């Protein structure tokens, strides 16, 4: 059975936020919802400041608090390590959101509007889109996945239901990598199978020292960070996205 994990190299990340954009387009996430989010941090006092960046997808924890607390089992852990949200079963209690130490859950406070970002019907865009399927029409997002046949890919976005990063389950099931890893221009984000000793993620973790966010919380996340250090109390976020529905 595969054991998926993500490895993010903080020494390569330049804070361009292309991963955020790619995730949005791939999963058609609604306004102000950031399944992938990139922190811009500043430490120290001027003139001795240092700015660095931290991409934050869902951690897909092995000891996920969100899985433990879901009252109806809509949030569950797959054998391959992905923590999935069944948007047909979710009752919108938001317990997973308060339980998550990383703040990766997004509740749909209203019915999201489709077609937020680009009018794919615009004739001028024809040469650009080349008749590609718009994200909100991607049938992969609506399909059920896994032997349990649950709808866990990005198609949900229903009013009153929770959603979060799915590690692009609809792409992973087809053998592709996640949208954020695909889009990163400096290959800072790697996704792969830890059970495969030759995968990039396995080799990176063997070679370089790494850490995980909030280790002391005991959640055993599946996202590893190379280089850099965990954001402690002296770190401040700057240029945060001002996004509130």
């Amino acid at each position, binding site marked *: 059975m595969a054991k998926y994990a993500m490895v993010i190299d903080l020494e390569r990340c330049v804070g361009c936020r292309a991963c955020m954009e790619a995730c949005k387009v791939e999963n058609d996430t609604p306004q*102000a*919802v*950031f399944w992938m*989010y990139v*922190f811009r*941090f500043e430490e120290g006092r001027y003139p001795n400041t240092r700015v660095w960046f931290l991409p*934050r997808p869902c951690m897909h924890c092995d000891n996920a*608090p969100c899985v*433990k*607390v*879901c*009252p*109806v*089992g809509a949030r569950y852990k797959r054998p391959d390590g992905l923590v999935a949200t069944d948007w047909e*079963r*979710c*009752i*919108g*209690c*938001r*317990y997973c*959101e*308060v*339980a*998550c*130490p*990383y*703040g*990766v*859950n*997004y*509740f*749909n*406070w*209203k*019915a999201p509007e489709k077609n937020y970002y680009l009018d794919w019907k615009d004739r001028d865009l024809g040469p650009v889109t080349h008749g590609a399927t718009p994200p909100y029409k991607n049938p992969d997002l609506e399909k059920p996945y896994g032997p349990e046949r649950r709808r866990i890919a990005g198609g949900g976005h*229903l*009013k*009153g*239901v*929770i959603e979060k990063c799915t590690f692009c389950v609809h792409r992973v099931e087809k053998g592709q990598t996640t949208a954020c890893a695909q889009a990163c221009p400096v290959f800072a984000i790697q996704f792969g199978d830890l059970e495969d000793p030759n995968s990039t993620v396995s080799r990176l973790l063997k070679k370089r020292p790494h850490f995980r*966010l*909030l280790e002391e*919380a*005991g*959640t055993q996340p599946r996202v590893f960070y190379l280089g850099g250090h965990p*954001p402690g*109390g002296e*770190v*401040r*976020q700057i240029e*945060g*996205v001002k*996004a*509130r*529905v």
Partner: protein
Amino acid sequence: MTARGEASRFETLPYGVGRLTGGWALLVVALLALVGWGAYAYSCQFVEGKVVTGMRNIGTMGGATWGLYIAFNVYFAGVACAGITVAALIRLLNLNALRAVARMAELLTVITLILGAFSVLADLGQPLRALINLPLYARPQSPFFGTFTLAIAGFLFDSLVYLYLAGRRDAYLMARYDTPLRPLYRAWAAGYRDTPAERERHRKTTFWLAIAIIPLFITAHSTLGLVFGLQVGRPGWYSALQTPAFVVLAGVSGVGLLLVIAAILRGYLREEQRLGTGVFRWLGAFLLVLTLAYLYFVVVKVLTGFYAGHHHEQQLTQLLLWGAYAPVFWGSVLLLALPAGLLLLQAITGRWNIPALVACGVMVNLAAIGKRYLIVVPSQTHMSLLPYGPGFYAPTWVEYSIIVGLFALGALLYALFVKVFPIMDVPEEGVR
């Protein structure tokens, strides 16, 4: 029978049952209007989604995802637990002085449990799905399993049974009057005959029910505390003290509200004899002990957070003591300390003053609401373990309206019950 005759038939019923006064009718109309307004607010929320509330996502959206609805759910559940526990203690410890308020307390439990269930439903994003998915899929590992099955469903059933059984004798006595409500009383009495054997059986059953209620109350309210206390990702929630503090504050708010209700009924029914100072002295003493116990918890929590602790725990303590939430915190502490002082004064001098007790009851309930709010909200807006930056939560008219509507619903149900069934035990001599 003429209308005059009808009215005169109700004249003889005890405790104002059946006598619909103008004042009562006006109250019911006003409460119905408030309930209607709350329902309208809920319909807005149901149609447009929770975007009409002040709640927003934790993290990048800088909001609180659990707000007034959850705070009041905890508040109502707390009051419910206290109501039935007072009733149970009366029977277990033979507190004859408090027998007059037993049914008031039982009714308080049933009604506030209903309100608690409604406030959770108001909070859910997909309430209709929940009505099916919770009984179908509920997982025991989630603390919500306990709150849904034990704290709401189980407790509601339990307190309805208790209210029913405890009221059988009075239903039998009321059925001896010739009134239009006779079929109801007969059905409630269900063949009760006031024989010594029956009375003994009734005493045994209610005694054992009372014993069963105490562990149920502690388990049910503890699961509610565990909903918060087990969350390692939320500084301020993750604490072993959370659950016992919940239980004690439940007692404070419940006894306080019972005091207020008893005083209102005393005035309305002019029952200065039955609801005399004896009753209020006991309730006041209970309230004093519970309030002091809760203040002790507050002191311990603040001291611990202040003295040492995780970076986040210290931050939370500072936030409460002199940060954004200081007004609510100090307001709640004052609204607990002041009644504690007043109650202590009355206990020491031995002179219990009913208006002062009512004021204490109101103050501790306001404090309980404030403390529930302080438990639910600051840990979400300010206590993210990752450095998202502070958030804010400002409830909107929708949330306030729904909460007001819930209180109005509770008062309405109470007012209706009082006119249909005697709110206190019917004395034997009252029956002709």
